[in-house]
């Protein structure tokens, strides 16, 4: 008999109760409605949207606000308009507007974090899925490579590389990408290996589908939500890693500015000018938390079996959240 786990598809109650209208392949409006129904995810999406818009258009609008040095206004406290609306979030030791610097730093931070995450995700996932599906020597080799990378203290590796090759943005992206590959590799491999023994994969083999088609058709769509979640968490990690590197002086180099760099530059002023580290730190936190929330939403929205949770407004859902969690 096949594995018992496969034979029991759902808990008895769900079998009796059935799925509330799971719905067809959702059109655009259904996605929107699902997002709106989950208010927290909607807020997260809005925030992320704002962040991306800032990254794209911000520097243009802000002009030279971020670089305009005004020593008369150095280290001004935030939340007053006494020094002009531009300094509403305070100024740094050189009198530059915090608000302006935050906006410009947004672009730099994202332009390091996003490519790093994308590259490591794509490379790691592809190798992982391939290794997990075929097993055998491919799996062994891939896992050993991942082990090697993981056993290096990544920050140390970054320090060495950047010291030797000079800290340009491209190098930073490359180093961060390489050190994060194992995370995706291992996740993708594990899921791929489990899926490769599923019955519907066997079925695909009977019609002559080759490994590559099966991976694209069956493994990838199922693994993708997990990888997305991992990617958003990793996004947070990368942003913080970049800030560590900047703190050590081998990350983003002044006059370029990133949130991480701002945090580290403000370190010496923590008692006197707390806003120097606080606001960029807050920006990092808000961005990462929003990304994580949105990833969690996306995970549910892309799974036809779980989608029903998002078709009901949150308030009605909470009455069943305890039960709903158990039904999942």
């Amino acid at each position, binding site marked *: *008999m096949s594995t*018992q786990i496969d034979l029991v598809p759902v*808990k*008895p*109650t769900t*079998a*009796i*109760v*059935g799925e*509330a209208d799971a719905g067809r392949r959702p059109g655009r409006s259904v996605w929107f409605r699902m997002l709106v129904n989950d208010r927290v995810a909607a807020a997260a999406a809005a925030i992320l949207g704002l962040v991306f818009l800032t990254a794209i258009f911000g520097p243009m609008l802000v002009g030279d606000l971020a670089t305009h040095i005004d020593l008369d206004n150095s280290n001004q406290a935030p939340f007053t308009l006494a020094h002009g609306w531009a300094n509403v979030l305070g100024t740094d030791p050189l009198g530059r507007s915090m608000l302006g610097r935050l906006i410009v730093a947004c672009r730099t931070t994202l332009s390091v974090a996003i490519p790093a995450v994308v590259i490591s995700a794509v490379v790691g996932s592809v190798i992982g899925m391939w290794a997990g599906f075929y097993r055998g020597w491919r799996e062994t080799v891939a896992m050993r490579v991942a082990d090697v990378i993981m056993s290096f203290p990544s920050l140390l590796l970054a320090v060495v590389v950047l010291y030797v090759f000079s800290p340009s943005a491209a190098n930073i992206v490359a180093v961060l990408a390489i050190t994060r590959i194992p995370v995706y590799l291992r996740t993708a491999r594990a899921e791929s290996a489990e899926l490769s023994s599923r019955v519907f994969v066997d079925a695909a083999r009977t019609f002559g589908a080759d490994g590559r088609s099966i991976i694209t058709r069956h493994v990838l769509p199922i693994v993708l939500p997990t990888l997305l979640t991992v990617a958003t968490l990793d996004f947070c990690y990368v942003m913080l890693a970049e800030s560590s590197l900047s703190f050590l002086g081998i990350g983003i180099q002044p006059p370029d500015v990133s949130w991480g760099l701002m945090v580290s530059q403000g370190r010496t002023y923590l008692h006197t000018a707390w806003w120097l580290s606080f606001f960029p730190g807050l920006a990092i936190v808000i961005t990462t938390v929003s990304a994580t929330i949105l990833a969690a939403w996306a995970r549910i929205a892309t799974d036809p079996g779980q989608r*029903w949770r998002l078709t*009901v407004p949150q308030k*009605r*859902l909470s009455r*069943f959240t*305890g*039960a*709903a969690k*158990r*039904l999942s």
Partner: protein
Amino acid sequence: MTAVAEHVPAERVDADPALRVEGLTVDIRTITGTVRAVDAVSFAAHRGETLALLGESGCGKSMTATALVGLLEPVAEVVAGSAHIAGRDGLADLLAADRKTRRKLAGPELAIVFQDALTALNPLYTVGTQLAEPFRIHHGMKAKEAKRKAVELMARVGIPQPQERMKSYPHQFSGGMRQRLLIAMAVALNPRVLIADEPTTALDVTVQAQIMALLKSLRTEFDMAVVLITHDLALVAEEADRVAVMYAGTIVETGSVAEVFAEPKHPYTKGLLDSVPVNAERGAELKSIGGSPPDLHSIPEGCVYQERCPLAREICRTTRPPLEAVGARRKSACHFPGEVKNV
């Protein structure tokens, strides 16, 4: 043993039942509303006799069992009914019992055997430890004594070399052996009532025969009332004395197996019997019940079976037929029990 399942002698039958369930009703809270999974189910199980709860998936038979032993999922709850078990200390209502009473009853009075032994046994403990557990908990035995009883028990259920196998783990046994272990744990304290929920569904047919033979001999030895939950008609025909047929959470027919199967008084029972390919000509169409089991969200007014029933009439749509006597010790929930034979 060529006979049909033995009939229990009349004096026995009229004596008080070991387990009497009355009006058991279980509701499930779902996101779209409350669903009634078990609706006013009543039956009685007598010692030395096997009562079968027969039905397809979703009919509520498993939920009935889990309600009786108090293992309902959090979304489900018992909203009505009583289940009196005639224990050594007198009658106790399982459904009204608090946790303490329940724990006292579980083992010495009421026991359950589940379908999947692998998930019902703890993979981290040896078999010896798990089998000794009922003795240590309920009889307060010391470990050595309890282990001795466990070995006896394993020998009784037919596990070869029980002394050596005490130290083995559940996954080291085959499916049939594991099921024997589950049965051993269930009968360890000589319960009055044993509920077996699809005990042999996952087993090969030759192993199934062995397990059912074991259950039968244990039933005789311990004079237990066995409630057998299954969807397999042939199994009911061979192993059970009485049967209660369930559909959509309600009992639609009860009676002795011989009588119900020879002359069913409910169209669903007849439909089930006709679906089994017994003497059909090869290649001939099997008579099947049209449609599919009802969605519990939308059980119709009136008879639950009306949408698939060939005898359905106006009255069936408006009035739910009560479970009434249609003969000596036979009941059926149908407005036209006499016409079933023409279906």
